[in-house]
């Protein structure tokens, strides 16, 4: 069976799922970021992540900054108005550094942000660039002590001779201040570039993966980390694949997976051995050798792997498709969805302009029934597993009226272009949606274009 025609009835122009029945209709809610077309490199969004309750939404950018948005508490008098996300905190997480040994710059770009489950009043997140992972504490301060005996209100010390009475300092309310402070800095764990981090369900440890190694850290310990996977060959000339992503299982604290540039996923069990070089399961779809081309391996490289919330499935994203795997079946995925199959006949130019190496992420909705991933031309795809339907939507400034319903978009691969369709050659390959996130419980999605963050919500009746 030819790989490019699976499933056999896959259309080259995307069918819209429109409205009706149980289909969700998506509406514009908010857009964050500058409108101008002149994008400074530092403003390029590099990661988007909701926290475990969905109340907070964090973004990281190429300039090493983190911006956290908070969902406003719902306005009971206006139930149609879904709560909005407003800026809660922003801070500089990482700064550029120079690696003196290798004479290379260490970019401050935030590669990934992962939230810790909330344990107390403060919020914690891990943010990482290529080399260093930091644990940030975000806490609120809404009162301050006043009435010290030895200090003035501005901090200057009072002359002891002028003090004639004593008073008891009291806490007085103040304007809410949100402070972010780095609590742990995990350095020198990685020779190569960190591509992912994943917090364990035990809420004590986390994984960090670079191109060739995966380390296990304890959140409290910064001067040591344990190497659990090492695929570096003794002779670098023999290098055939690199690690592209890793994730802990959502419930089993001993299980994690990592994906490779060759399209395989390995599941490892830390109970089996301390060093997980030998996998417990290897997920790989057999390939028809007669269909192999120069591009086969490149487009099979997995750019993202995500467990389903229920922990029974995992989803992988390669250049042209999204695959759902049952953890109990290693020899092939249970579902395959084409994201933008019309690009298969453009691989030559996509290789020349390096777009073929773009790393798209993917995400699940709260009940694992729909998955989402980005594409080019600021399109993103919603793939409904339960209804076997898919729709292509666009994040565009032209659909920014409040609660405006997004219209399905269609791409014409060839032949006569129908009205409302866009031809493949008109797609803007500089407008890529690499990062998307789905609220853990509600139908609220965050979609990052190059430098803008769009928030879409389900249409409320």
């Amino acid at each position: 069976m030819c790989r490019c025609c699976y499933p056999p009835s896959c259309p080259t122009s995307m069918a819209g799922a429109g409205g009706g029945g149980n289909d969700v209709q998506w509406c514009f809610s908010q857009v964050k970021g500058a409108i101008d077309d002149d994008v400074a490199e530092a403003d390029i969004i590099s990661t988007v992540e909701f926290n475990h309750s969905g109340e907070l939404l964090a973004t990281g950018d190429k300039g090493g900054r983190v911006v956290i948005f908070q969902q406003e508490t719902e306005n009971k008098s206006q139930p149609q108005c879904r709560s909005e996300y407003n800026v809660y905190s922003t801070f500089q997480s990482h700064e550029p550094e120079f690696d003196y040994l290798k004479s290379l710059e260490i970019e401050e770009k935030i590669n990934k942000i992962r939230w810790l489950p909330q344990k107390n009043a403060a919020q914690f997140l891990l943010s990482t660039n290529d080399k260093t992972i930091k644990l940030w504490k975000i806490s609120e301060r809404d009162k301050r002590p006043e009435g010290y005996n030895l200090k003035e209100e501005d901090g200057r010390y009072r002359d002891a001779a002028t003090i004639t009475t004593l008073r008891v300092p009291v806490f007085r309310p103040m304007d809410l201040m949100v402070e972010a402070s780095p609590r742990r800095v995990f350095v020198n764990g990685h020779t190569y570039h960190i591509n992912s981090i994943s917090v364990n369900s035990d809420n004590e440890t986390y994984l960090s993966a670079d191109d060739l190694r995966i380390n296990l850290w304890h959140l409290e310990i910064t001067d040591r980390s344990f190497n659990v996977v090492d695929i570096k060959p003794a002779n670098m000339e023999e290098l055939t694949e690199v690690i592209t992503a890793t994730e802990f299982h959502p419930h089993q604290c001993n299980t994690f997976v990592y994906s490779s540039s060759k399209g395989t996923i390995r599941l490892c069990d830390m109970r089996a051995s301390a060093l997980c070089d030998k996998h417990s399961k290897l997920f790989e779809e057999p390939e028809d050798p007669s269909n192999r081309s120069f591009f086969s391996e490149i487009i099979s490289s997995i750019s993202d792997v995500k467990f389903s919330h229920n922990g029974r499935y995992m989803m992988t994203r390669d250049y042209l498709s999204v695959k759902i795997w049952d953890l109990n079946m290693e020899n092939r995925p249970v579902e395959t969805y084409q994201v933008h199959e019309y690009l298969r006949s453009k691989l030559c130019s996509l290789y020349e302009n390096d777009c073929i190496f773009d790393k798209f992420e993917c995400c699940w909705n709260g009940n694992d029934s729909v998955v989402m991933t980005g594409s080019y031309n600021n399109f993103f795809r919603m793939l409904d597993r339960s209804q076997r339907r898919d729709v292509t939507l666009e994040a565009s400034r032209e659909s920014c009226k409040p609660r405006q319903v997004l219209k399905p978009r269609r791409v014409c691969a060839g032949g006569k272009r129908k009205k409302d369709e866009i031809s493949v050659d008109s797609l803007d390959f500089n407008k890529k949606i690499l990062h998307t996130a789905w609220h853990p419980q509600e139908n609220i999605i965050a979609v990052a274009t190059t430098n803008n963050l769009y928030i879409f919500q389900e249409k409320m009746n």
Partner: protein
Amino acid sequence: MEDIKPEETKVEEQKDEENKVCPEKLEEAKLKAKYPLLGNKPGGSDLLRKRLQKGPKYFDSGDYNMAKAKIKNKQLPAAQTEKTEITGDHIPTPQDLPQRKPSLVASKLAG
């Protein structure tokens, strides 16, 4: 002549079908036509090693800092005039010097 023609068209048809069925191979042919020296193994160690080392290599930290300064100056011409006012006139004190990172601008997402 009549006998040869049908065979030729048959081969052409087969090729067309193959190309229709496998656009990937068609694209590969395009690429090889443009870059005849391209090796057969794209996922090989060369590509991966290039991936492992991303970013330009600098001669040393001085080279790096000079390059960074050039970029900063391009982005903020206002800050540059500040600097020229200070030097040459008097020995600067720490208060006079511009902050080490004047370009630390808040994210536009927070605007």
